[in-house]
C-alpha cells in the first residue's frame, strides 16, 4: 500500500506541471543485455517454428514421440505459434508481452510432452531430455520477461504491462457540458453505475465514504468501501478503497474547462489490483476485457448520458451494452423510468 501511495503521489505531482503528450509514457533508456537475450530467444522461436512446420516427423523422432497424424498436426500448430512469437519478439523487442507468450508456449510444450509419455510408442528417455531442454528455455524466458517488465514498468506508466500486480488506466473524454455540471453528476456516486458497465451500485454512506458493488467474472460480485481523499469542487476528485477491499483501487478524476469554452476535458487516472495478485492481473489482461477499452467505453457512455440524457443503443449492438439503460430513480426527473411509451395503432 505504501508503494502504491508513493507512486500515486508521484503521479499527482507530475500532473500539476504542464506536460508533453507522452510524459511518463516512454523514455529512451533500455538495457542492451536484455535486448540481446530477447533477440536470441526470438530467433530461437523462428528456428524451432520452421523446423516444426516443415519437418514435423524429424522433430517427433528427435523428441521421442510417435510420428502419427495428431502429433504432426500439433507440431505444425506449435510451429505457427513459434513463428508468430518470434516475429513478435523481433519486431517489438521491448514488449515483455511476447516473452510471456513464449513462457505460455513453453508450458504448452511441457504439457504436450507429458501427455505423450503415456503412449506406448514413445521413447521416455528422449522425451525427458526434450522436457529438460524446454524447462531450461522456460527459465531463460521467465528471466528475460521479468527484466523487461521491470524495465518497462520503470519507463512507462505501466498501462499495458503484462507483468504487474496493478492495472493502470488513463483515459480522457471531451464533454459538451460545464465542469460544474459534470462534477456535480460524478460527485453523486450513485450516478456512476449509469455509465460504468461493471458497477452494480454505489451506496453513499456520508460525504466521504461510500460502498461499491461491482460485477466480477462468473456471475460473482466484488465489494469495497471507498473514501474520497481529495475533493476540489469542479476541478478534481480523488478516491481510494479502504482496508478489506475485494479489489484495491484508487484514482483521480480531473475536470478541466476546454479551451474556447467548448465544454470540459475530463481525465481519469485509475489503478486497481485485481484479486489473485499477479496471476489475477495477468488473467484480467489476457482473458478479460481490455481495461483501457473498458474505461474508454464507460467515458463514452458518460458523455452520452450528460449530453443526450440517454445511453446510445442500437439493436445490432445490444449485446455490447449494459444495464446503464435503466435509470436510477433519483436522477433525471424527465427520464426516470425505462422508456415508457404512449402507444397508438396497437394493431400493427
Amino acid at each position, binding site marked *: 500500500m505504501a508503494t502504491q501511495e508513493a507512486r500515486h503521489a508521484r503521479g499527482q505531482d507530475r500532473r500539476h506541471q504542464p506536460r508533453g503528450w507522452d510524459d511518463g509514457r516512454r523514455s529512451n533508456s533500455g538495457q542492451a543485455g536484455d535486448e540481446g537475450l530477447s533477440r536470441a530467444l526470438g530467433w530461437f522461436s523462428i528456428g524451432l517454428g520452421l523446423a516444426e512446420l516443415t519437418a514435423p516427423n524429424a522433430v517427433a523422432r528427435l523428441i521421442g514421440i510417435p510420428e502419427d497424424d495428431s502429433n504432426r498436426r500439433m507440431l505444425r500448430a506449435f510451429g505457427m505459434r513459434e513463428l508468430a512469437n518470434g516475429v513478435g519478439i523481433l519486431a517489438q523487442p521491448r514488449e515483455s508481452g511476447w516473452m510471456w507468450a513464449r513462457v505460455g508456449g513453453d508450458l504448452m510444450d511441457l504439457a504436450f510432452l507429458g501427455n505423450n509419455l503415456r503412449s506406448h510408442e514413445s521413447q521416455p528417455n528422449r522425451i525427458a531430455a526434450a522436457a529438460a531442454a524446454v524447462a531450461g528455455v522456460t527459465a531463460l524466458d521467465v528471466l528475460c520477461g521479468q527484466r523487461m517488465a521491470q524495465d518497462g514498468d520503470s519507463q512507462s506508466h505501466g498501462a499495458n504491462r503484462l507483468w504487474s500486480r496493478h492495472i493502470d488506466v488513463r483515459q480522457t473524454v*471531451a464533454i459538451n457540458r460545464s465542469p460544474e455540471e459534470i462534477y456535480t453528476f460524478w460527485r453523486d456516486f450513485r450516478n456512476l453505475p449509469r455509465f460504468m458497465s461493471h458497477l452494480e451500485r454505489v451506496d453513499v454512506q456520508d460525504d466521504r465514504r461510500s460502498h461499491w458493488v461491482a460485477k466480477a467474472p462468473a456471475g460473482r460480485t466484488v465489494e469495497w468501501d471507498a473514501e474520497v481523499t481529495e475533493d476540489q469542487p469542479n476541478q478534481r476528485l480523488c478516491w481510494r478503497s479502504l482496508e478489506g477491499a475485494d479489489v484495491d483501487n484508487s484514482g483521480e478524476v480531473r475536470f478541466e474547462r476546454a479551451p474556447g469554452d467548448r465544454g470540459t476535458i475530463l481525465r481519469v487516472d485509475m489503478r486497481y489490483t485485481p484479486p489473485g495478485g499477479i496471476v489475477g492481473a495477468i488473467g484480467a489482461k489476457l482473458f478479460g476485457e481490455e481495461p483501457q477499452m473498458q474505461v474508454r467505453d464507460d467515458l463514452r457512455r458518460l458523455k452520452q448520458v450528460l449530453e443526450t*440524457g*440517454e445511453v446510445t443503443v442500437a*439493436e445490432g*449492438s445490444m449485446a455490447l451494452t449494459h444495464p446503464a439503460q435503466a435509470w436510477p430513480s433519483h436522477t433525471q426527473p424527465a*427520464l426516470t423510468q425505462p422508456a415508457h411509451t404512449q402507444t*397508438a395503432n396497437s394493431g*400493427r
Partner: protein
Amino acid sequence: MKANCWHGKKDMRVENVPDPKILNAHDCIVRITSTAICGSDLHLYNGFNPAMQPGDIVGHEFMGEVVEVGKGVQKLKVGDRVTVPFPISCGSCLSCQRNLFSVCENSNPNAAMAEELWGHSPAGLFGYSHLLGGYPGGQAEYARVPYADVGPLKIPSELDDEQVLFLTDILPTGYMAAEQCDIQRGDTVAVWGCGPVGQFAILSAFLLGAERVIGIDRFEYRLRMAREKCKAETLNYAENDVHHALMEMTGGRGPDAVIDASGMESHGLGLAGAYDRAKQAMMLESDRAVALRQAIMAVRNGGVVSVPGVYAGFVDKFPMGSVMNRSLTIKTGQTHVQRYHHHLLERIQKGEIDPTFIITHRLRLEDAPMGYQVFNDKQDECMKVVLKP
C-alpha cells in the same frame, strides 16, 4: 414484420423479423410508407463492407407515419408524417451544434470499431453495417428512430411520398455536393456519375448559380436524363478521353469545381481500371478511385473537389502532388441531412424542385432483392427503385 435483410454478397432476402421496440426515451417508431434503394446500398450488396452481418436489415432512405413515441419525445406525436434523415444525430454534442450532423459524437454505439479504422467515429447510420452502429434499416415495415426530436422532418399532407422521400438522403446529398463547390456566377462544374446523386448535384449546381454543368457517365440513358431533365452537357467516358474533352470544353482551364458522385466502386477503363480492380481483388486497396483521380487532375488551378461519393478505406495512387501544387480544396462528408432538409422541403413546396423524375421502378417491399439486382446491373434503364412496404 417484413424486412429486407443482407445475407452476403448479392444475397438479399425479405424475411419476417421481430417488430422494432422503443429502447430509449427519445425514440420513436415509424410505420414505413415508402423506402428506396440507394447507390450506396449497392456497396453493401456487392460485399464491400466487412462489418455487415447476415440478417442485418438494410435501407436508409425511408419515410412514414409515427406510430409510437418514447416518453422523452417532445416535438413529434403519434400520427405525424415524417421523412427520416439517414444519419442518426443526437442534436446536443459539439458536432451537432455546429450543424455537422453526420459526424455526431454520440450516435454510434460501436464507435470504438470506427475509431480503429478512421481515427474517430462519425454518426451512426440506419442500415449501414455494424461499423456505423448496427442500426436496423428502413427497407422494412417499421423502424425504430433514435433522437426522434432531432432527425425526422414533418411533412405536410398535401405532398406525396414520392415528392419528399429523397429528402432523407440523395437530394440533400446532391445539394451539399454542389454547395461545397462554392459556386460563383458563371462557373463551370463537372460531375462524375449521373446516378440519382449526380442528377441532383447537377440540378443543385444550376440552382446555386453555375452557368455550365457537365455530366460524365458511360450509360447513355443516364446521360440522356442529365441532358433532358437537368439541362447538363454530357460526356460519355467510354467514348471520350474525359480529360482531353473537358480541356477542350473549357479552353484548357478546367472546370471551376468537380464533383465525384460515384465513389469507391467507380469503373475505370483500360490499364488504370484493371490496375485498381486487381488491387481491390487482392485486398491491397479497399477503394477504387478512378473518378476521383480523374476529377482532381481535371479541375482548374485553385478549384474545389467535392466528394459526395462514398469511400470506406484506403485509396491507392492518390494524386496529392496535384492537390498541393495547384492549390486545390477537397470537401467531402456524409451528408448533414438535417442542415438542408427544411430548406429543400420549402423549395419542393414552391415547385422549384421536383425530385420525382429520377424514379424508374416502383416495387413492393417483397421484391427488394429483384430491385437490387436490376439497379446494380443497370438493367431496364434503372435509375431509382422505390419500395412500398
